[in-house]
C-alpha cells in the first residue's frame, strides 16, 4: 500500500493515533461530554509535560539515545523547588528560584552523568535507567533526613522529613498557567506555561543552530566527520547530556507549578517513560529527533491520556482503556526500537 507523500512523512503510527483520538472526540461529542473542557485539559497537559519531553531532544541529538536517566535532572529540579518552598518565596519568583537552583545543580550532575556515559558507549540507555533508579533511592534518604524546617513541608505527625507530596497552593500553584491565561471559544488556554514551553523550544531550536549545537548534531551524525572537523565528540556528548539534565530540572519545576504539587520520593522514578513515549510517538527515533516531534508527540500522547479514560468511562463500565494505553505506549517504544537503522 502506498500512501501520499505527506501522509507517509507524518507516519502511519501517528496517523493511527490521530484517528483514534478523533474517534474519542467523536464519542465525547456524541455522549454530550464537555468537549471544551477535554480540549482545555489536553492543552494544559501539553504545557505541563512539554519541557520534560523537550529534555530528551538534546540527548538524542547528541547520539546518546533515549535519556532514561532523566530522573537525574528531575531530582535537581525537585531540590530547587524544595529549597524555594522552604525559603517561602512566593509567586513567579519562587518558580524562578526553583528553576535557577535546579539548573545550578543540574550542570554538575549532568557533567558527572555525561562523563559516565562517555565511558559506557553503547550502553547509555541501560546505565541511564539504573543510575536513575539508584539516585531516586538515594534521594529518598535525603528527603527523609534533609534539614528542612518549614512546618508546611514536614510530616504532620513525625515533625521531620519532607512529606511525599508538597502542596503549592497559595505559593506558586499555577502562577504560569494563570499568567497570560485566556479563553478561546470556551477553551481555557494556560498562556504563561505555553509561552515558557514555546520559549524553551525556540531556544533549543536556536541552540542547535549555534556553533555548539551544530557540533553536537554533527558529532552524532558521524563521529569521524566530527573528528575531521576538529570536534571532540566526547565533549559534545557531555554538552548534550548537561543540556538534557538542565531541561529536565526546568521541566519538573514547570510541571510542578502547573500541577500544584511537588512530588518527592519515588515519584521521579518512572517519569522518563511517558516522556520517552511522547517523543517516539511524535515520530522521533533513537538517533534522530526534532522540535516538531516533541510538540506533535506531546500533543498526541497527552491528549490520549486526558481523553481516553473519561470518554471510555462514558461508554463502558469497568473499562480497559488503562490496559490499552499500556499496550499502545510500550508498543510505540518497541516499534521505534526495532525500526532504527532501516528507516
Amino acid at each position, binding site marked *: 500500500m502506498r500512501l501520499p507523500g505527506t501522509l507517509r512523512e507524518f507516519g502511519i503510527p501517528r496517523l493511527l493515533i490521530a484517528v483514534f483520538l478523533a474517534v474519542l472526540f467523536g464519542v465525547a461529542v456524541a455522549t454530550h*461530554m*464537555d468537549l471544551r*473542557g*477535554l480540549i482545555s485539559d489536553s492543552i494544559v*497537559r501539553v504545557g*505541563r509535560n512539554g519541557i520534560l519531553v523537550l529534555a530528551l531532544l538534546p540527548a538524542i541529538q547528541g547520539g546518546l539515545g533515549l535519556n532514561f536517566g532523566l530522573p537525574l535532572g528531575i531530582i535537581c529540579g525537585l531540590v530547587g523547588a524544595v529549597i524555594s518552598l522552604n525559603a517561602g518565596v512566593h509567586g513567579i519568583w519562587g518558580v524562578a528560584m526553583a528553576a535557577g537552583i535546579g539548573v545550578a545543580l543540574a550542570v554538575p*550532575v549532568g557533567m*558527572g552523568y555525561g562523563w559516565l556515559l562517555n*565511558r559506557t558507549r553503547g550502553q547509555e540507555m541501560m546505565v541511564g535507567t539504573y543510575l536513575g533508579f539508584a539516585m531516586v533511592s*538515594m534521594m*529518598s*534518604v*535525603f528527603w*527523609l*533526613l*534533609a*534539614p528542612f524546617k*518549614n*512546618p*508546611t513541608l*514536614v*510530616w*504532620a*505527625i*513525625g*515533625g*521531620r*522529613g519532607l*512529606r*511525599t*507530596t*508538597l*502542596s503549592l*497552593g497559595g505559593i506558586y500553584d499555577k502562577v504560569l498557567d494563570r499568567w497570560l491565561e485566556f479563553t478561546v471559544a470556551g477553551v481555557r488556554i494556560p498562556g504563561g506555561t505555553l509561552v515558557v514551553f514555546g520559549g524553551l523550544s525556540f531556544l533549543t531550536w536556536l541552540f542547535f543552530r549555534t556553533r555548539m549545537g551544530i557540533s553536537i548534531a554533527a558529532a552524532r551524525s558521524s563521529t569521524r566527520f566530527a573528528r575531521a572537523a576538529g570536534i571532540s565528540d566526547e565533549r559534545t556528548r557531555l554538552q548534550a547530556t548537561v543540556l538534557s539534565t538542565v531541561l529536565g530540572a526546568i521541566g519538573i519545576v514547570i510541571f510542578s507549578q502547573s*500541577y*500544584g*504539587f511537588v*512530588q*518527592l*520520593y*519515588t*515519584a521521579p*522514578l*518512572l*517519569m522518563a*517513560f*511517558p516522556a520517552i513515549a511522547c517523543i517516539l510517538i511524535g515520530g522521533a527515533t533513537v538517533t534522530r529527533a526534532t522540535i516538531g516531534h516533541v510538540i506533535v508527540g506531546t500533543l498526541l500522547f497527552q491528549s490520549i*491520556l*486526558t481523553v481516553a*479514560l*473519561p470518554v*471510555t*468511562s462514558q461508554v463502558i*463500565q*469497568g473499562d480497559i*482503556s*488503562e490496559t490499552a*494505553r*499500556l499496550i499502545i*505506549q510500550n508498543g510505540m517504544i518497541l516499534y521505534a526500537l526495532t525500526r532504527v537503522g532501516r528507516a
Partner: protein
Amino acid sequence: MSRTDTKISRGLFGPLTVLAGAAALFAMSLVGCAGKTDGTANAQASAQKPPEVQIPFKIGIMTGTVSQGEDEFRAGQMVVAKYGQDHVKMVTYPDNFMQEQETVIAQLVGLSSDPDVKVIVVGQAIPGSVAAVRKIREKRPDILIGMVEPHEDPAIVNQTADISIQPDQLARGRTIINVAKGMGVTDFIHYSFPRHMSQELLARRRDIMKQACAENGIKFHFVTAPDPMGEGGLPATQQFVMEDVPRELKQYGPKTAFFSTNCGMMDPMIRTVLNNGGYVPEQCCPSPTHGYPTALGIAIPPDKAGDFAYINAENKKVIAEHHMTGHFATWPVPEVMLSIRTVTDLLVDSAMKKADYKDEATVKSSMEAHAGVPIKLSKYDEKKGNSYLFLVSNIYY
C-alpha cells in the same frame, strides 16, 4: 610517552570528580543527620525515654515507609516508644511492594528469626504477607500474628492470621453514602481502577454503594482512573483526578460527592474539591492526617506534631476560610494507627496471658480505649477465623 601520561591523569580525573560528588552528597546527608538530631529533639527524647510497659519478650512490627502513608509508620514508632527499643523490632516494606514480594516475605520471616519474638504485627498486610505468615508458622507456631488492613483475599487472610482487623469496608459502603446523604448530595463519584477492583472487598463495597445510592436517591457514577502502580506512576493518577473533579462538577452540579479507593488520590481530590466545590464524605483510609494536611497546606510546628486535636482544629479552620464548612468528613482518629496499636497491645497482653484476643468483647473494648470514641465491631466470618471489621462515627469539618 608523555601522551599516555596525560591520558592516565585524564582517566583519573573523571573518577575523582565523581568521588568528590559522592563525598559532597554524603556530607549533605550528614548535615541532614545533624539537622535531624536538633530538629527532632522530641522524637529522640521520647525514644530514649524508658518504655511505658516492660515485657519479657519482643515484638516484631512491619509498616510502610512514610512515603506510603505517614499514619502507618508513625503508629509503628508509637509501638516502639511504648515498649522500648530493645523490645520492638520494626521494619518497613519496600515502596514498590507489589513487585518486591520476596522482600516483604524476607522482612517478615526475618522478624521471626529472633527466638525472643512472640508477637508480630503487619501494619497493612500487603501482598506477600500471607505467604510470609505461612512460612513463619512452619517454624514458629508459637508466635501470635496480627494482620492489619490485609490487601490479600480476606478469606485466605481469615484462615491465616491470629487476628486481622480492618475498617468494615462493606458497611462503609452504606455509612459513607449515609454521610453523603446527610450532606445533601445528589451525585456520587467513585474513582478506582482495575487492580483495586480485583480486590474482593473493594469490589463488593462498590456494589453496595451503588445499591445504597439507589435506595437513597443518589446517582452513582463509577469512574476509572489510571493505576498509580502503572508505569505512568502516581503523577498520572493525580493529574487525572485534578482534571476530572471539575469536569464531573460541571456535568453533575455542585452537589456531587467524591470518593476514591486509592490513598494517592486523596491530596488532589481534597484540594480540587476545596477550590471547586463538591463534597468528600470520607477518605479511602479515614484519618485527619490522610490527605488533609498536604491538601490544605496545614503548617504543623514541631511542638504540635502528632497532636490530633490541633490538626483537626487546623483542618476545620482552613476549610472554613474557603467557605466549605460541612463539605468534608472523616474519622476522628487515623484508623490504621488505631488498628496497629490495638492489635499490638492485644496480642502482647494475650502472650502474657492477660487477655484473649479471640474474644470479640475484649477486642471491642480495647479498640474503644484507644480511639476514645465508640466503635462498631463485627466479625468477617462468624463461624471460623478471627477477622474483624470496624466502624467509627464521623466528624465533620
